[in-house]
Structures are given as C-alpha cells and as structure tokens.
C-alpha cells in the first residue's frame, strides 16, 4: 500500500539503527507517548535492536487503558437496559470493570456491538428509532473530531436516540503531569503523530521549553519510529531541546483547524480521571450543554460516583507512567494474560503489557 509499505522497509530501518548506534555516546531515556507506537516498537523488535544506551519508556497513550473503572461499570449497566444498544470500539469490550466486562454483558444477553466508526453507530440510531443507541466514546484528540461530528450530525438530523458516554482524554496535560513528577527519568519525547495531525505542534513548544526536553512528533511505521528516535538522540547529544516534526507528511504545525473547530463546538475541557494514574486537571473532554440531549450521563441520570479504586495488585499506573516495565509486574504472564487480563494494559493491543506479552517472548534483555 502506498505511503505504508515504504516505511516498513527493513534495510532502511537497519540504516537508521546504524546511524543511531554511531551517534549515541551517553545513556538516554526516550518516552514514546502513544500506545500505537509502543505496539509497533515491540512488534518490530526495534526496542531490542536499539543500542543499550537508548532506552524506550512506554507512555500512557492508550485511551482504552486509562478509561476509568466507573465509566466501564456505567457502560455495562446501560447495556443491560432493554431499549439500549451499547456500541464501542472493539478493544473496549474486554476491559474489566469492577465486576465483569462489556463482553461478558453481551454473553448474558445485553445488546453490545463493536463499531468501527461513531458514524456507523449514528446510522444504527437512525434505523432503530425505537431504541436508544449509546456510543461509549473513548479516545485522544485523534478520535475526538469523528466523535464530535457524529453528534453534530445527530443534532442536525434530529436523531434524538443517539448519545455518547464519553471518556475523552487529552495528551499534553498528561505529558505535563508526568514531567512534573520529581522522579521522572525522561530525557526526550516522541509525540504521537496522529494526535499532532489534529492538534499540530503548538502545545509542545512550552513543554519542550519549560522542561528542556526534545520533543519529536513521530509516525507509527518502523522507519518513522527509528527516524524519530534518531532525531531525538541527535538533539540530546548536541544538548539542545527543540520541537521537531518527523511526520511532516501528515502533520502540519497548526494541525487541522477544521477538526479543532469541530471538537471545540461540541466539547469543553474538563478534569479527567485516568485509570491507574489518577485525576489530571484539564485533561479530558465533556459535551457542552448545547448537546446535553446527546449526553448519556445526563440522559440516563448516571450517578457520577467517585472513581473506584483500581483493582488489586495490578501496577498499571506505574507501567503507564513509564516507571515500571510490564515484566516488573509479578502477575505478568502468570495470572495476567490477554485471555484473562487483570488490568487494562493487558487488554488493548496498544497496552504495554499486551504488546510485551505478544511480541517480546519475555526476552531477558528486555527485563532489565
């Protein structure tokens, strides 16, 4: 496929790795923010092929993983209502709430459906005016425009039986929260390419300046990742801290203005609880009052009870902050597996635990 295969070229990846080996002289920790990047780094063996001096730290960029337990419980409760069709993205169905998952609710007879796009869920609502279609909307800035668009179309066409249960999170406030922690060990960041496609680079200049760290907006294919890592390493070795754009074929400095306007017209910024991490100020999106009739929280009067404690011994919070690797968790691969996940990062293909479980073969070199 054009614009995809070229960036998976093994020989070119090796040339980049070679260049990284020749450039690096000191140990550096680089955090990739996005779970999609974690998945690609581990799947393609890049983590293992990097020089020992370059360590990748896996960031919190998996929206499925950070969706709070109480919202999953809300989604499960709604799915058991007779008139409700509960829709979401595939990964969301297996994430454990405080008891059970949406998939288990489905097995018990609830009408739970996997959707590729919120626009498909809107179609479903149009076809079934006798039902209430609730879309469990999770995602970062990348996904927010499509979700917002479904609400705008619902409002325009008076499709009143379509609503959202939202758990939308924003990347820069989470990055800031991690960099604010005294014990963080991050020297450079790879910003998530598709988030930047929407939002552009502006938000990263103050972060890079304040915390004096290089930030490189980076794509998801192997060539993108090794180029992003090289650009970060070059900056680190030179002792500079700038914002750079590796993914310029998709990312413009100002982002996609129309998409930003669409987000702003439907959502407003709010504090958000991140599963395993806690509350981060101004790090989430909620529907504006003008769209209250499409807000499942208000429509079904869901109690916004305080977020439940995350379950048991899962150390997902530390994994998501990059403090621990999945293998540091005593449950990893034993009591916690993708078939029987104890925490969200083992569920989503972009969760760090699942990525390591599937692709790294518990490699010793990674467990250090």
């Amino acid at each position, binding site marked *: *496929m*054009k*614009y*995809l295969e*070229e*960036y998976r070229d093994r020989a*070119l990846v090796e*040339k*980049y790795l070679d*260049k990284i080996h020749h450039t690096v002289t000191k140990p550096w920790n680089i955090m990739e923010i*996005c*779970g*999609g990047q974690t998945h690609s780094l581990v799947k393609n063996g890049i983590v293992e092929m990097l020089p020992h001096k370059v360590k990748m730290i896996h960031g919190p*960029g*998996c*929206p*499925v993983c950070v969706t709070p337990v109480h919202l999953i419980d809300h989604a499960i409760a709604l799915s058991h209502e007779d008139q409700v069709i509960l829709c979401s*993205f595939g*990964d969301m169905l297996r994430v454990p709430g405080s008891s059970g998952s949406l998939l288990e609710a489905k097995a018990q007879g609830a009408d739970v459906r996997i959707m*590729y*796009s*919120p*626009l*498909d869920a809107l179609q479903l609502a149009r076809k079934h005016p006798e039902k209430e279609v609730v879309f469990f909307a*999770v*995602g*970062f800035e*990348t*996904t927010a*425009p*499509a979700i917002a*668009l479904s609400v*705008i*179309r619902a409002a*325009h066409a008076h499709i009143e039986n379509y609503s959202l249960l939202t758990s939308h999170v924003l990347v820069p406030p989470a990055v800031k929260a991690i960099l604010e922690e005294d014990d963080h060990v991050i020297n450079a960041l790879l910003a*998530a390419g*598709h*988030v930047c*496609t*929407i939002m552009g680079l502006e938000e990263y200049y103050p972060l890079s300046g304040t915390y004096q760290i290089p930030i490189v907006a980076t*794509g*998801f294919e192997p*060539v*993108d990742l090794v*180029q992003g890592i090289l650009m970060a390493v070059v900056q680190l070795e030179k002792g500079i801290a700038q914002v750079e754009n*590796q993914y*310029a*074929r*998709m*990312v*413009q400095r100002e982002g*996609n203005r*129309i*998409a930003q306007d*669409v987000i702003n017209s439907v959502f407003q910024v709010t504090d958000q609880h991140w599963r395993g991490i806690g509350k981060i100020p101004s790090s989430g999106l909620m529907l504006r009052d003008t769209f209250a009739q499409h807000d499942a929280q208000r429509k079904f009067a869901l109690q916004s009870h305080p977020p439940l404690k995350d379950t048991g011994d899962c150390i997902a919070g530390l994994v998501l902050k990059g403090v621990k690797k999945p293998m540091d968790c005593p449950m990893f691969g034993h009591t916690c597996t993708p078939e029987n996940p104890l925490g969200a990062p083992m569920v*989503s293909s*972009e969760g760090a635990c699942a990525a390591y479980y599937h692709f790294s073969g518990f490699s010793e070199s990674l467990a250090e």
Partner: protein
Amino acid sequence: MCLAIPGKIISIKSGDDEFLKSGKVSFSGIAQEVGLMMVPEAKVNDYVLVHVGVAISVVDEAEALKTLRYLEEIGELDELHKDQ
C-alpha cells in the same frame, strides 16, 4: 486506538450540507465510504489519512519522500562539514 491509514480518494460526493461531505476511498483496492468534511482541499486521486471513518489529513507527497531520503541528506551534510 489512534490507528489511521492512508487511502486514495476515488470519488467525492458533496451534498448541500458541508458536514455531510463524503467520498469513496480505496485501501489496497477495497473501497470505503469516508467523511471528507475535515479535508476540504482534498481532490480525487489524493491520498488521505483516515481514522474511524473520517479523513483527517491530506498526505503531503514531498514530505513523504523526505522521510525516505533523510539519511542520505544528513549524510551529505556530514560530508560537507568534513570538506570544510
């Protein structure tokens, strides 16, 4: 979650309502209906980046090539510096 893939626009259907603008996009020969309202500049035969059924960016061809040639370019720069 943030997975987005590039595909080629094969037709555009524009309605009266800008929010309904959509088109057919081909991914390796498989055509899908995609929302195009966020990329008003996109034309037939352009490649767009598609995420959950909505195009979010038009691929910049010149920049796409640069990534593939980046190493050669910085290699040439290194050579220049050596010559000086």
